[in-house]
């Protein structure tokens, strides 16, 4: 009886799925056509809105369909019936994980990573990818339309405090950051970049459309591709930061809709905006890159990583008590894994707590695992959400960390750390100071420093000084692209060798420009933001890094490719700067135009006067009566008086 009902349900599901897929495929084609025709007419804004809206609608229906389907491993019939093509279906899978790291400051760091991998090629000649299953279609179409090879976008609220919290798994600067590597087949990279930012702005409901040539740069060395591929000329790279971007629910919602399960199941149910935005640091990111399909790297697969990094504050969220639970952090508990996921895990960093003397975990972790991450071997308690035993009798998982001792954990100082500030007073000139700390006791290592300064702070590169341990430290490589007014920013890239256990200070002077009154932001006296400096480095590792590809790693340890055992890659973002500029009086345009024109007219008038008139002896003008009499005499024809 039950078996019969099951098959009937399965049949119905397959039928429904096939129908909806056919109809949505037609709709999707219509949308694509419409979108292309609009975008060809260069109406970015309109296009991006329509596109994003229709895409979002499409996503929802698609994911709902997906949820009706059984997981891919159990059934291949549904995928083959819906793909309706003769080629074998390309393999895709979805993994989700959550890492929780108690920070020495008492705060807690939660890092979500969702990986969607798809063994397909968007750019294979003669083949148009039109069927999407787990991979979000809006991003897939974006990739193929703009020939994007690699795309990294992040939206961050708050500043990551490296000295208190250590290194994050995925660094991101405050505000919005976008960097894209285009395929080498793209001829007009700037045009593609402009359109891409507008479309992304629609997809994520963010102000990415404010990215233009005045804040876009092509770094030569700091942002190398993270995926496979051999194009490394910076001609195909575009990098932009919007330090002023405010991240809010409207960015989180479209972000969540890119997930196969949306926010309906799996780890994503924890992402409730009222809790996530009530935190010290929140960073949403989407990374797309080509990766190897297998260990031999015979074909490329596309990897989409969606990440959320959040730091909950001990005092505001935790009410001062060092006691954290899923419910306290997210006001939700976990009840199931995402049915579409092949792996769904929760990791809790228990390295400082091997015997449970610092804090206790409740429920106790079913297993422990070790991973080498950021140059350190860490131990993690693992809760596998795919295992049925994890959820216990209550059918929900609410991991509780309770500290036994109020004392804080000693944190190893991060080996690399950066700070930045503006020195000087007044609104005429100033000096940018960047401090880079190498806390390694005996190893020197080189770092790449990337500075992007808007054109209205005119840098004087001859004032650049780099000092370490009060001695001049000449950079071995400097790439400086001066700014063009209203066209492009300053780009300064340097390779600096940091001596062991030292602070390296980089200073450069600038001059503040007076802008046109229409170029100021609506709150000009708030100041202008300058994006974070980016410090990229290969930091000497304490333990041997894992460079083998044969083992299954947790997602958080595999973002930056690791090529050698002795060092690991770190990117550190410094604080963004807030710089005041001199302002004109915004209420005065008419007055100024009138007054200046008056002065010019005084000059013109006095010269005109002297040029056109001649000197004459002033004769006293006759009185009124005499003039009247003369007029009558003139009419009478008698001689005048």
């Amino acid at each position, binding site marked *: 009886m039950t078996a019969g009902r099951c098959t009937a349900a399965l049949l119905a599901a397959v039928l429904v799925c096939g129908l909806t897929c056919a109809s949505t495929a037609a709709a999707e084609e219509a949308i694509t056509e419409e979108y292309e025709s609009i975008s060809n007419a260069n109406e970015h804004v309109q296009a991006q809105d329509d596109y994003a809206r229709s895409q979002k609608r499409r996503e929802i229906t698609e994911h709902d369909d997906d949820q009706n389907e059984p997981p891919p491993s159990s059934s291949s019939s549904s995928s083959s019936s819906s793909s309706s093509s003769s080629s074998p279906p390309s393999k895709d899978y979805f993994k989700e994980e959550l890492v929780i790291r108690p920070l020495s400051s008492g705060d807690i760091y939660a890092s979500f990573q969702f990986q969607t991998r798809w063994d397909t090629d968007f750019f294979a000649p003669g083949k148009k990818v039109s069927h999407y299953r787990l991979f979000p279609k809006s991003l897939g179409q974006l990739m193929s339309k703009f020939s994007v090879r690699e795309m990294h976008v992040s939206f961050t609220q708050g500043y990551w405090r490296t000295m208190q919290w250590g290194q994050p798994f995925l660094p991101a600067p405050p505000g919005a950051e976008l960097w894209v590597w285009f395929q080498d087949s793209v001829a007009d990279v700037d045009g593609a970049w402009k359109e891409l930012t507008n479309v992304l702005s629609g997809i994520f409901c963010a102000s990415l459309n404010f990215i233009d040539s005045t804040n876009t740069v092509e770094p030569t060395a700091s942002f190398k591709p993270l995926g496979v591929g051999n194009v490394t000329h910076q001609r195909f790279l575009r990098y932009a930061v919007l330090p002023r971007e405010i991240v809010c629910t409207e960015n989180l919602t479209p972000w969540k809709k890119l997930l196969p399960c949306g926010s309906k199941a799996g780890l994503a149910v924890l992402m409730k905006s009222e809790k996530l935005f009530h935190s010290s640091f929140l960073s949403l990111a989407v990374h797309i890159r080509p990766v190897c399909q297998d260990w031999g790297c015979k074909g490329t697969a596309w990897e989409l990583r969606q990440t959320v990094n959040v730091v909950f504050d001990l005092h505001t969220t935790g009410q001062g008590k060092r006691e954290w639970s899923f419910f306290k952090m997210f006001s939700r508990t976990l009840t199931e894994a995402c049915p579409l996921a092949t792996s769904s895990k929760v990791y809790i960093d228990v390295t400082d707590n091997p015997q449970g003397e610092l804090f206790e975990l409740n429920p106790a972790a079913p297993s422990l695992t070790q991973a080498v991450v950021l140059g350190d071997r860490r131990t993690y308690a693992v809760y596998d959400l795919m295992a049925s035993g994890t959820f216990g009798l209550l059918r929900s998982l609410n991991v509780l960390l309770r500290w036994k001792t109020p004392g804080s954990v000693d944190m190893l100082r991060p080996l690399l750390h950066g700070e930045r500030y503006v020195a000087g*007073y007044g609104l005429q000139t100033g000096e940018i100071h960047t401090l880079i700390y190498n806390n390694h006791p005996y190893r020197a290592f080189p770092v790449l420093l990337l500075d992007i300064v808007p054109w209205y702070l005119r840098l004087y*590169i001859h004032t650049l000084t780099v000092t370490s341990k009060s001695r001049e430290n000449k950079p071995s490589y400097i790439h400086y692209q001066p*700014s063009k007014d209203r066209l492009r920013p*300053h780009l300064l890239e340097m390779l600096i060798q940091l001596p062991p256990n030292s602070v390296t200070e980089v200073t450069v002077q600038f001059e503040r420009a*007076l802008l046109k009154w229409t170029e100021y932001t609506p709150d000009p006296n708030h100041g202008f933001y300058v994006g974070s400096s980016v410090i990229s480095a290969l930091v000497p590792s304490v333990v041997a890094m894992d460079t083998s590809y044969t083992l299954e790693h947790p997602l958080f340890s595999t973002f930056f490719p690791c090529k050698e055992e002795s060092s690991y890659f770190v990117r550190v973002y410094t604080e963004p700067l807030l710089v005041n500029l001199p302002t004109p009086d915004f209420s005065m345009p008419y007055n100024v135009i009138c007054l200046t024109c008056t002065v010019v007219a005084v000059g013109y008038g006095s010269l005109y006067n*002297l040029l056109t008139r001649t000197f*004459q002896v002033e*004769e006293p003008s006759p009185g009124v009566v005499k003039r009247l009499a003369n007029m009558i005499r003139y009419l009478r024809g008698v001689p005048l008086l």
Partner: protein
Amino acid sequence: MAAPLTLVLIVAVTIRAVLFSSSLAEPLMERVEVVSPLNAWKRVVEGLALLDLGASPYSGDVFHETPLIIYLFHFVIDYADIVFMIADGITAVALYLAVQDYNKTVFRKQKYALEADRYPHDCLELIRTPKEMYYIPLKVALFYLLNPFTIFSCVAKSTCGLNNAVIALFILSTIKGSAFLSAVFLALATYQSIYPLTLFAPALLFLLQRLYIPVNFYRPSFWLFTLQYAVMYLGSLCVIVCLSFFLLSSWDFIPSVYGFILSVPDLTPNIGLFWYFFAEMFEHFRFFFICVFQINVFFYTIPLSIKLKEHPVFLIFMQIAIISIFKSYPTVGDISLYMAFLPVWSHLYRFLRNIFLVSCVMLACSALFPVLWHLWIYAGSANSNFYYAITLLFNVGQILLVSDYFYAFLRREHHLTHGLYLKRKDGSEATLVLK
């Protein structure tokens, strides 16, 4: 006569040398009244630094000097102080010699006129005597070298001093009658900052006058000489521009120097009229007003040349003054050049109407510039309008000064032909008016 000049030079150099080594030199280099984006020393150094980094100095929007300047300082960067002192010395000596020669010409003409009995008899008190003219060249040198504006400009190493030297050499070679050198220096001055282009007319008039060629459009000799001078001028301009091209092998300097002067993209405050006007300008009127303001500088050349065709040296003075008032990035160094000519017109003093007022305005403004700048930029207790108001007043003062000298000059000429004590028809004492 050489001894007092040497003394003045020594005093001037000493003052500059002392200031160069004092703590005043550093803040002066940042003063917006003294340096503009066009001629700031900091930007010259930046251009050289960019060259050292392997980038074109014109790839950014900081450096706006001509390639010849960068070539010059590529070699003498370590002796920049001396170069600027020498430039000031050259300007002073050139003006000294030029004025000396000019005075001789004036005196000779006056003698001929007296002998021909062309002056009315009551004009004897307008006749200039050799005694009062004797010290004028020295006063000119003194006015240039010891003018605080020149000193500040030199100590701030504003390349305006070099432009002044080129213009002074142009004046000297014109007055000495060397058409070729005059054309070369005029081309060099034009190459440096476009605006001296308007000095072409007075130079041509002076040279024609010197060769006794009347300004008559029906005379081939007039056209022949005009063509000759124009070809020399354009030829040397062409040579200089091509030379600049070969120095850096790119034409980037044309938009970066001349485009920058003409389109005024940098709104850094200065003592001129452009910066605040274009900071507050409505975007769609911007181009129109840029055209109006730039034409305004060149516009006066033709009517002034017609009115003053008998007095080309006064015309040169007028043109330099107009340029320094209405140019897009003026500095006090530009003002000091035309101020050096004021002693030459000391005989006009009796006809000046508001010299006292103008002097007070100029002095008060010069003192108020740094005060209001400090209040706006550092103290934050004033806003940009305060500084703007002072630049307006300063420019009104300059305009009044120049038009007053123009008035006095015209009036003196009128008296020299019509007599000093004019009578009305009824025999009572008359007053002169412009009609």
